[in-house]
């Protein structure tokens, strides 16, 4: 690419939020016509950096150059004017508008809608043709799949004549096949001379899609390397600052008796939509069964039913005894009494009360346990002591039971939940998204704990949207699509490709 000016150059960008230094003296050069990956753990400062580039935040220090020109970006209008387009992780589309209406939203020209719609339609069709992005301009957003919605977001940026596209965790909601399609689109955009910044925490995507990768850790840019010259192990080490085990170390499973036996389970949600459409599933003692699937295909409902806070019909047995699926005897307390522990998918909404201290959270769900009572009162001393012990065993930092849950990092929050559930020595552990928003260092530890529980002869049902995690952790994988189980595979005998097809509803 010779002596071209970089499409984006950041020099010495710093940004602090109160006492937290989110970005420290960051410099980066992104060459035009390349895909540049930015990888880092949650809280490493990736999003802050991109928000500065897109004009949401103002940097405390530092300069931004676009195509060699020093540029001030006080707001997102200025970013768009400078040719920067952003595709957010959570789409910013009006659900009940058509594609075309969404595209021109905020970029209408003239006071009358009809002529600008007509003009936009022409431009849009040209763009679609040029980049091979086929979307029906008249389709209503809510009727489109997530992959399509993402294309609309990309088209929105292109319509605003973006030369530089920033994609923030774009594959979070996509099936592997949809993700591959996205990468093909990004390739095409690169060929047409666009510059792309891809923000992600997934090593695999960086390796597959990018030309250059920058690694961020704790607000600092620790390295920028050519993707071809690096390896996932090296990147992980750069992200965490120490060597990490990327594979889960485990022996093969020794499945015992059936612990969880589900027959023809059906769940209808509040709106009357059937979310689980009759599934059969077994989990045996001493095995981890992973439920793979794109978010929203019934996995969450499955956990909610088994965890005791959604009604269902069908038959579920735990250790041979039937489980109530509706009514008073089916609540979380009854489930815990049956030896079912549950690490919920969303720890901040469900698993923890963020304003409560760590010790109050350790009692959460078990607060009526005799161990935690003295008469009618809660035995706060006992709960505190228990919390301190659990925090020690699970290496929660800081090991301060009085600190509010919201003041722990994601990984430590998850450890608090995990310690609470696993230390009860349940027969069946339900785990949802165990490592979502958790740093790599803690992931390793959390995986080890789940495997250790399995090795003690307990049954584990794992739900995760991270296929890598499912494959690494599970002994057996069931794939859910549209409320059905599309198929079951032994994890040793399958791969991401096969599971990816099942996740997309294709039964091979």
């Amino acid at each position: 690419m010779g002596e071209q000016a970089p499409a984006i150059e950041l020099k010495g960008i710093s940004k602090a939020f109160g006492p937290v230094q989110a970005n420290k003296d960051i410099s980066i050069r992104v060459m035009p016509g390349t895909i540049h990956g930015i990888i880092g753990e949650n809280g490493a400062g990736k999003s802050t950096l991109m928000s500065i580039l897109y004009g949401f935040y103002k940097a405390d220090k530092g300069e931004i150059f676009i195509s060699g020109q020093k540029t001030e970006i006080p707001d997102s209008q200025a970013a768009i004017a400078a040719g920067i387009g952003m595709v957010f992780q959570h789409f910013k589309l009006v659900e009940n508008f058509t594609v075309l209406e969404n595209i021109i939203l905020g970029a209408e020209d003239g006071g009358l809608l009809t002529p600008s719609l007509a003009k936009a339609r022409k431009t849009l069709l040209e763009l679609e043709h040029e980049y091979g992005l086929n979307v029906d301009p008249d389709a209503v957003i809510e009727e489109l799949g997530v992959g399509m919605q993402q294309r609309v977001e990309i088209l929105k940026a292109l319509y605003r004549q973006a030369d530089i596209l920033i994609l923030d965790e774009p594959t979070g909601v996509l099936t592997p096949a949809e993700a591959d399609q996205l990468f093909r689109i990004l390739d095409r955009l690169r060929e047409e001379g666009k510059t792309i910044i891809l923000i992600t925490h997934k090593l695999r995507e960086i390796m597959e899609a990018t030309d250059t990768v920058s690694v961020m850790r704790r607000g600092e840019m620790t390295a920028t390397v050519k993707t071809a010259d690096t390896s996932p192990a090296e990147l992980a080490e750069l992200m965490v600052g120490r060597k990490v085990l990327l594979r889960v170390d485990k022996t093969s499973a020794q499945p015992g008796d059936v612990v969880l036996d589900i027959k023809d389970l059906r769940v209808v949600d509040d709106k009357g939509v059937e979310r689980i459409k009759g599934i059969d599933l077994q989990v045996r003692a001493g095995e981890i069964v992973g439920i793979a699937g794109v978010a929203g295909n019934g996995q969450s409902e499955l956990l909610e039913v088994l965890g005791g806070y959604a009604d269902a019909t069908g038959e579920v047995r735990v250790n041979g005894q039937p489980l109530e699926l509706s009514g008073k005897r089916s609540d979380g307390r009854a489930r815990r009494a049956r030896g079912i522990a549950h690490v919920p998918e969303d720890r901040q909404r469900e698993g923890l009360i963020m304003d409560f201290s760590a010790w109050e959270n350790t009692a959460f769900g078990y607060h009526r346990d005799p161990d935690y009572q003295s008469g009618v009162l809660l035995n706060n001393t006992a709960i505190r002591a228990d919390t301190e012990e659990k925090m020690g065993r699970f290496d929660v930092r800081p090991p301060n039971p009085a600190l509010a849950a919201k003041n722990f990092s994601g990984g430590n929050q998850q450890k608090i939940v995990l310690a609470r559930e696993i230390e009860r020595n349940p027969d069946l552990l339900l785990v949802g998204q165990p490592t979502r928003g958790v740093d790599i260092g803690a992931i390793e530890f959390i995986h080890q704990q789940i495997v250790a529980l399995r090795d003690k002869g307990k049954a584990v049902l794992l739900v995760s949207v991270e296929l890598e995690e499912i494959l690494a952790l599970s002994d057996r994988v069931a794939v859910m699509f549209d409320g059905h189980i599309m198929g079951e595979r032994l994890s040793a005998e399958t791969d991401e490709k096969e599971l990816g097809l099942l996740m997309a509803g294709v039964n091979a």
Partner: protein
Amino acid sequence: MDMMPKWAEVTLVPLISLVLAAILSALVILAIGEDPVEAVNLMVTGALGSTYGWGYTLYYATNFLFTGLAVSVAFHAGLFNIGGEGQAMLGGLGVALACLLIPWPHWTLALLGAAGAAALFGAAWAAIPAFLQAKRGSHIVITTIMFNFIGAAVLNYVLVNLMRPPGSMDPATARFPEATHLPTLHDILLPLGINFSKSAPANVTFLIALLACVLVWFLLWRTWLGYEIRSYGKSEPGAKYAGISPVAITMIAMLISGALAGLMAINNVMGEAERLVLNAVEGAGFIGIAVALMGRSHPFGVLLAAILFGFLYQGGAELALWTSIPRELIVVIQALVILFTGALDNMVRMPLERLFLMLRRGRA
């Protein structure tokens, strides 16, 4: 990583808010041509300068304590009970029925019986909005407000048509019998050698309010029920996950809240008026909201806030009595206090947080 130390949060924020409210009030008093220093002087001596003043201040504070606690308990469950007014009104009806229908041998028994009736009636009046919220999702703010009006209408009907003594022109019940009269602070403190004002209305109910304060604290922070109430108030999905029933907690929290509001009636109806009159609550149900806001829904914060509002009420009454400052201005001053301590909390909090942050960084 809290923005500022706990002590600053619980002391500095309300104090500064209060000072701001006082300064604005002083400006308003200046603007109508009166002397603010003189006004403060009058308020303080009027409310705190004599046992008579204290007697009124504590009497008002007792009312606000009950309604403030009522709002606080509901707040902890994430419910905004605006119906304290109506619940206290119905509590008054309970007190009147208990005092008039049952021939009590001694005031202690009468107090127990009347308190039970007050709590029961208050809780019953909160139960319907609570049920509608828990089962049908009707918003509790709307329903409790509506129930204030319904409560007033019910009381009006009962007083005019059913409980008014024959021949009386006054929509009020007959006077309660002698045996139900509660000892005033004068009666209680005299054996201790303290000559408390005889004509002030503060009575034994104040001690019960203090007890209620302690009990609410125990309930919320030491029992599993309180734990469930607070959990539900912080996160409904979390509560469901933990096996806490939203329906049960909504009902229980509102019943407790209604009972506390109802209990106020033993102070104003049984302790002071000794009969049930129309509009006996006099807005104390609404003041309870401000008291709970200012006391940050903590029983001891509520205690301090209730005494502050008792002071404002009594001091304000004195002010209206001795100066040409109109009664309405007192309401303005009270409103300013509510505005600053309740609604504009963040206006004081944010600069304070920044200040503490600067101090910390300066030290680091």
